[in-house]
């Protein structure tokens, strides 16, 4: 009991420290740094959403981009001011209730999430009966179908032209607020009985079923929750970007998130959090590679896209040589930190004696 209150206290302290850091950042950091910081939090949300289904439940779904698209479009359509909407929809006017409707940002995020969750339920009905790579390709298929439908629904989504001038609601407080809520939710959920059931499905479906875990029900729960979170992440991304279009939500978008999840470790919240920061910041700082490089006599005039090549090689190296990513399925908790500290100080003492 005492241990529990201590860790709760430490967590609260950490949250306060985080708020402090964010205040400092907002006061002193440049816009560019703030942008990267916000993107870190958004990627964190997206990575955790994917980790819930791919890492914790062991269902290899490749449909995240589709759910993100729904969240992004819902958020954009519900927050863009009516006058701007009228200007944007040139080929076909926006359908009736949407053209005048504007809602607060938070509400738009939740509505987008609920829409994606409802759709995930429908998609899950057929897809979750499949296994392994068949499920992967079927979810990927649905994600593509969503994208094609978005491209063709001129009077709702403005088709291939996409949506512009989405209000920049996703400031640092929104991004980190949502990220924090998602982290806490994931922490509680994965240690709850539901989370344990999901992990047992990952380890061995047949054994889980024979222990009385309802396979389909639990898989569906994870799938729907993951879609909800992915859509919220997509909504944040839309507001962060300012413009969205159907091409943004190709399969590549799913791969980008997958990269974070794999690097951090499938089935580790801490892993996804750390990897989201490493990958986002890494991708920014590797922009150097896109610029001119001189190594000795060798000189290039800057090739755009070089950093993505380096990044994909890195991803391959991680998969081939460090299959479990940074954390595997382990978590960083106060207990594990305490244990680590104890063993470190223990080793220190031994060193002094010797």
């Amino acid at each position, binding site marked *: 009991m005492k241990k529990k209150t201590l860790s709760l206290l430490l967590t609260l302290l950490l949250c306060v420290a985080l708020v402090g850091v964010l205040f400092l950042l907002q006061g002193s950091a440049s816009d560019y740094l703030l942008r990267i910081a916000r993107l870190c939090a958004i990627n964190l949300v997206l990575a955790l959403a994917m980790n819930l289904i791919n890492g914790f439940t062991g269902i290899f779904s490749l449909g995240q981009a589709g759910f993100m698209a729904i969240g992004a479009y819902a958020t954009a359509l519900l927050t863009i001011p009516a006058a701007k909407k009228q200007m944007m929809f040139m080929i076909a006017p926006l359908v009736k209730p949407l053209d005048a409707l504007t809602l607060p940002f938070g509400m738009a995020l939740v509505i987008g999430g609920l829409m994606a969750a409802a759709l995930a339920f429908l998609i899950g009905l057929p897809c979750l009966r499949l296994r392994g790579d068949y499920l992967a*390709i079927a979810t990927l*298929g649905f994600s593509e179908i969503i994208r094609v439908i978005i491209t063709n629904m001129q009077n709702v989504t403005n088709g291939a032209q996409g949506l512009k001038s989405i209000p920049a609601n996703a400031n640092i407080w929104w991004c980190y607020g949502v990220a924090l809520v998602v982290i806490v939710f994931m922490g509680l959920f994965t240690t709850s009985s539901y989370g344990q059931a999901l992990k047992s499905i990952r380890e061995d479906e047949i054994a889980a079923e024979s222990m009385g875990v309802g396979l389909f029900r639990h898989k569906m729960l994870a799938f729907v929750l993951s879609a909800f979170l992915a859509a919220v992440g997509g909504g944040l991304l839309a507001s962060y970007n300012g413009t969205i279009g159907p091409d943004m939500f190709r399969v590549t978008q799913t791969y980008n998130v997958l990269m974070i999840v794999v690097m951090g470790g499938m089935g580790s919240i801490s892993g996804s959090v750390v990897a989201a920061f490493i990958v986002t910041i890494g991708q920014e700082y590797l922009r150097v590679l896109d610029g001119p490089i001189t190594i000795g006599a060798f000189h290039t005039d800057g090739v755009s896209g070089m950093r993505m090549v380096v990044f*994909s090689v890195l991803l*391959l190296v991680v998969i081939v040589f460090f299959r479990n990513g940074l954390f595997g399925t382990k978590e960083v908790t106060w207990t594990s930190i305490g244990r680590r500290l104890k063993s470190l100080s223990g080793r220190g003492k031994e060193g002094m004696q010797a």
Partner: protein
Amino acid sequence: MSVFLQQLANALCVGSLYALLAIGYTMVYGVLRLINFAHGEIFMMAMYIVFYGIGLFMLPWYLGFFLTIVITALLGVLSERFAYRPLRNAPRISVLISAIGVSYFLQNLATVVFGGRPLTFPQVALFTDVIDLGGVKMQRLGILVPIIAAALLIALMFLIKKTRTGLAMRAVARSYDASRLMGIDLNRTIAVTFLIGSAMAGVGAIMWGMKYPQISPTVGSMPGIKCFIAAVLGGIGNTTGAVLGGLLLGFVEIMLVAVWPDLSGYRDAFAFVLLIVVLLVKPTGLLGEKATEKV
């Protein structure tokens, strides 16, 4: 009537192209139980190689085509050597992620090396001239593609059914352990499978390029996924099934758009709908064997 014949010829042509690519998926799935996500990107690389060989270095077309097929085949073997072989004993999902990694890498590499701007595939007059067959006007390609595809498929069937290499492939597809005990070199057989599958993708890319002459780093992803669907449709792991699935997908796609032109915007989504229906109704595909999973 002539419009119908024209559509029919077009469908046959597209279907044969799908079949050529689907073969690569189904063969790799047969021996590795892996959806080779990078297959579409190997196909894309082949199109760029043709562009550089014929369009830029002015090689005669036959030499350019030959080199393309050889390089593409080697590329497939290389990808297997470095991204799949180290994971031979890993869980299947890891290999799947590795395949996604290869596909991602090749796309980014192509963007850097060849640039993101779309290029135009070099036209070879022998294939792209328009001919008139009793009122049906089409490129000579329209006849040549099905013939070439059929010839290649017959050769492949012979290889799989009658040669020792083919026997080894079929054995590996059945069981790794048993085929190892019989003295089959597992790695060599898998490499040969990738060699043949990628060479087929090379041939497919050459003909695809002449039919749809735009090259960009993402040109491979849609045909790639569609041809995988064709392979599933026919029953994955089954070469005859892949051909059947490819032809069927080509026909249905072309005919659907021909009958309801309004649906042309949804053409790409249609293949996925078909996939989902097949997976729900008959997950083993048209010709697939029923696999019982042991507990």
